[in-house]
C-alpha cells in the first residue's frame, strides 16, 4: 500500500533519503489488523486480486517459454512494494513465485508475517521486511524478475526517485507492474468524495488527490528512466457488486505493465549488441549482485 514517505515540502537539493511521515504511519497502523477481513475496510483491495493477479500471471506466462500451468510463477522472484498485510503477496506466492514483501509500517509486516505463518508453503515462499524501497536498493541490485507496486505510487512524494530505485533492483528485461489512480476531476469526485467520504469504500483520508498520477506522466517518467511501457489498461470498481473489471477508460483506476530495458548499447560501438538478459551492468550499479 505505502512505499515511500517524504516531507511533503519538496526540497530540491535535499540529500535526505526517505524519512517516514509519522502521520501516514499512524493512519495505517490503526487498520493494521483489518487487512484480512474480506468484508471489511480492505474489501475493495481483496476483490482487486480478481483482476490484478490474472493480469500479472498472464503477462508473465505470455513472456516465458516455460508453461507450467500447475505452478505458473515458479522460479520467478517478485518484489511487492508496499505489500501492506500481504494481500497480493500471498496469491503470487501460491502461484509459485518467491516473493519479498516490503512495507514501512511495521504493524503491517507483523500482520502479514502472522497471516502467512499458518501455511507452510507460503511461509517458505514469502519473506516480509519492514523497509522502504530505497533502504533495500543497495543489497538488492538487479535481484528481482518482477516488481509489483499496486496502489502505491499515489502515496509516493518523489515518483521519479521511486522509479529509479525500481530500475536498480530489477533485472534487465524485468517487469514492473503498477496499479494506481488517475488525477482527473472524475477521480476526485468518485475516488475521494464518493469512495472515502460517502460510501466508505476506502478508509477516509487514505488518498490525497494531489498525489494521484495521470498515466501519461507515469509513462513519461518510466520511458525516460529506462523502461518501455507495454500496456496500460483502465480498471473500474463496481461498489454494488463489489467487483472490479477492465474498462476502456483510464480516468479512474488503471494498471500498467512496463519492462526494464536490457543493457544500453555501448556508446561508440559499431555493431549492435543483442538484447538478452545477461549483459554488462550500468556504471552506477555498484558491487552488489
Amino acid at each position, binding site marked *: 500500500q505505502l512505499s515511500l514517505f517524504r516531507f511533503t515540502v519538496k526540497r530540491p537539493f535535499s540529500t535526505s533519503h526517505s524519512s517516514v511521515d509519522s502521520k501516514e504511519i499512524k493512519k495505517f497502523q490503526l487498520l493494521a*489488523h*483489518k487487512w*484480512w*477481513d*474480506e*468484508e*471489511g475496510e480492505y474489501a475493495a483491495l481483496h*476483490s482487486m*486480486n*480478481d483482476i490484478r*493477479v*490474472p493480469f500479472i*500471471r498472464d503477462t508473465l506466462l505470455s513472456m516465458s517459454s516455460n508453461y507450467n*500451468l*500447475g*505452478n*505458473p510463477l515458479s522460479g520467478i522472484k517478485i518484489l511487492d512494494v508496499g505489500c501492506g498485510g500481504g494481500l497480493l503477496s*500471498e*496469491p*503470487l*506466492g*501460491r*502461484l*509459485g513465485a518467491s516473493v519479498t514483501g516490503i512495507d514501512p509500517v511495521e504493524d503491517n509486516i507483523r*500482520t502479514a508475517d*502472522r*497471516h502467512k505463518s*499458518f*501455511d*507452510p508453503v507460503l511461509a517458505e515462499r514469502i519473506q516480509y521486511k519492514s523497509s522502504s524501497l530505497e533502504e533495500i536498493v543497495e543489497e538488492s541490485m538487479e535481484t528481482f524478475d518482477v516488481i509489483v507496486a499496486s496502489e502505491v505510487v499515489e502515496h509516493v512524494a518523489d515518483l521519479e526517485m521511486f522509479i529509479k530505485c525500481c530500475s536498480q533492483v530489477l533485472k534487465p528485461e524485468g517487469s514492473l507492474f503498477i496499479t494506481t489512480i488517475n488525477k482527473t476531476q472524475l477521480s476526485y469526485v468518485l475516488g475521494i468524495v464518493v469512495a472515502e467520504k460517502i460510501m466508505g469504500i476506502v478508509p477516509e483520508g487514505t488518498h490525497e488527490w494531489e498525489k494521484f498520477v495521470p498515466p501519461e506522466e507515469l509513462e513519461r517518467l518510466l520511458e525516460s528512466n529506462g523502461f518501455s511501457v507495454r500496456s496500460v489498461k483502465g480498471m473500474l470498481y463496481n461498489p454494488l457488486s463489489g467487483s472490479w473489471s477492465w474498462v476502456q477508460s483510464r480516468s479512474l483506476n488503471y494498471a500498467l505493465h512496463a519492462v526494464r530495458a536490457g543493457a544500453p548499447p555501448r556508446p561508440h560501438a559499431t555493431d549492435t549488441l543483442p538484447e538478452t538478459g545477461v549483459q554488462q551492468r550500468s556504471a552506477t550499479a555498484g558491487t552488489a549482485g
Partner: protein
Amino acid sequence: SSAAMAALRGRALLAPLGARLRAGPRAPFRSAASNPPLYDVVVSGGGMVGSAMAAVLGHDIHFHDKKIALLEAGPRKEYDHMPDSYSNRVSSISPGSATLLSSCGAWDHVCSLRLKPFRRMQVWDACSEAMIVFEKDDLDDMGYIVENDVIMSALTKQLDAVADRVEVFYRSKAVGYTWPLPSHGCDTSPWVQVELADGRRLQTKLLIGADGHNSMVRKEAEIKNIEHQYDQSAVVATLHLSEATDNNVAWQRFLPTGPIALLPLSDTASSLVWSTSHDHASELLAMDEESFVDSINSAFWSNINHSDFIDTAGAMFRSAISLLKPSGTAVRQLPPSVAEVDAGSRAMFPLGLGHATEYVRPRVALIGDAAHRVHPLAGQGVNLGFGDIACLAHHLSAAAFNGSDLGSLKHLLKFETERQRHNVSLLAATDVLKRLYSTTLAPLVLLRTWGLQATNALPPVKVRI
C-alpha cells in the same frame, strides 16, 4: 468460558455475513510442533459423489501441487473383476455426468466394465392411457444405466492414478469438526480441524461434505436442512426378462401407490426400482419369488385403475391434440414382461426429500445428498451430485489459478447460487410430481393425464426436460 464464547458469538453475528460466521468450538492454539498435517482440500465421504469430487480435483491441472484428502468410513473395496450377477444398486447416468466422469478418466473404465445405454424413456400413468415418451432426435443415447459398484471401481482406479496428490483414508470416520474464527482473530488457526475416530487430526483450507443425506458436516456446521420423510420406501431387485430384447428403453409407470421403474441392464436383465408404501414394500420383500414377479408384471400391465370416465376424457383430449398436431402422440411401446428375480437381490430403503438452506460456509461446501435429497422417480439423484461436482470443480480450479485462498466464501457463493438455482427447481418439480401421482382422485388424474399428453405433444417442453 461460556461468557467469552457468547461474546464471540455475538461479535460474529454483528459482522455483515453474521449468520455465516457463527463459530463453533474455538480451534485451540497449537504450537508449531504439534501441528496436524495441512491439506488444501478434504472431502468427507467416499461414496460415488465424494470419490468423484476427489478424482476430478486430483486430475485438474491447477491442482497439480495441491494436497487433497478423501475420508471414507468403510474399508477399501477391491473391484478386480465384476461378479457375473448384477448388483441391485444402479444409477441412471445422464450424458452430462458421463462427460464429468470422462474428464477424470473414469468413464473409459466404466465402458470397459459394463453399462447399458438407453435411447428412450416411456413414462405413463396407471389411471389412464396418458403417456409421455422421451427420445433424442439424433438417435443419441439418452442416458446409461450403470451399477454403482462399477462407478466406484472406475473412480477408485482413477484415484490410484493421482495418489501423489490425493490421499485416500479408508476406515476413517470423521467424528468432529472445528471451525475457524472469522479471519481477524489472528492468533488461532484459520483452518478447519478434522478429528478422526482413531484420534488422528487433519487441518484443511476447504472441507467438502459429501457424506450423504444425514451429513455430519452439515449438522456440525449448523446449516438448516429442510427435510420431509416420504411415506414410501423403494424396493430394488435384479430381474430377468421373459425374452431377450433390444432392451434400450427405460420404463416408468405411475401407480397410485408410487412409481415403478424398469431400468435396462442388458438384453435379458433389468433393474427394478419400485417406490411404494412402507407396508407394501415389506410385503414385496417377504413374498416368494413367483408372487413377486407376478406383482411386477401386474403393476406394468394391469388396467385395474382405469375408470371409464378418465379413459373417455383422455381419448377426447388425444383426438383434440391430433387435430391440431397430427404427429402429436408418439407410438406406445409395450414394456417387457418379467420371468424371474435374482435370488437375494431384493432390498428396500426409505425415501425422503431434503434440501440444505445453505450449501456453503467459509471453508465448507456441501455436495450430493448432503446438500439435497430427491425422490428416485426422476432418476436424477446422483446426476445432481455430479452436476454439483462439475460446478464446484470449475470454480475451485479458477480460484487455484488465481492464487486465491481455496476456502474463500467469494467463489463458494458462486457455486451455491448456480447450483441452488438448478437444484431447487428440480427438487420442487420432482416433489410435485410425486404428490400429483399419488392419488386416484379423478380431477387430479384428469389434470395430470391432460398435462402428460400435452407435454408429450409439445417438443419445446420435452426438450427442456
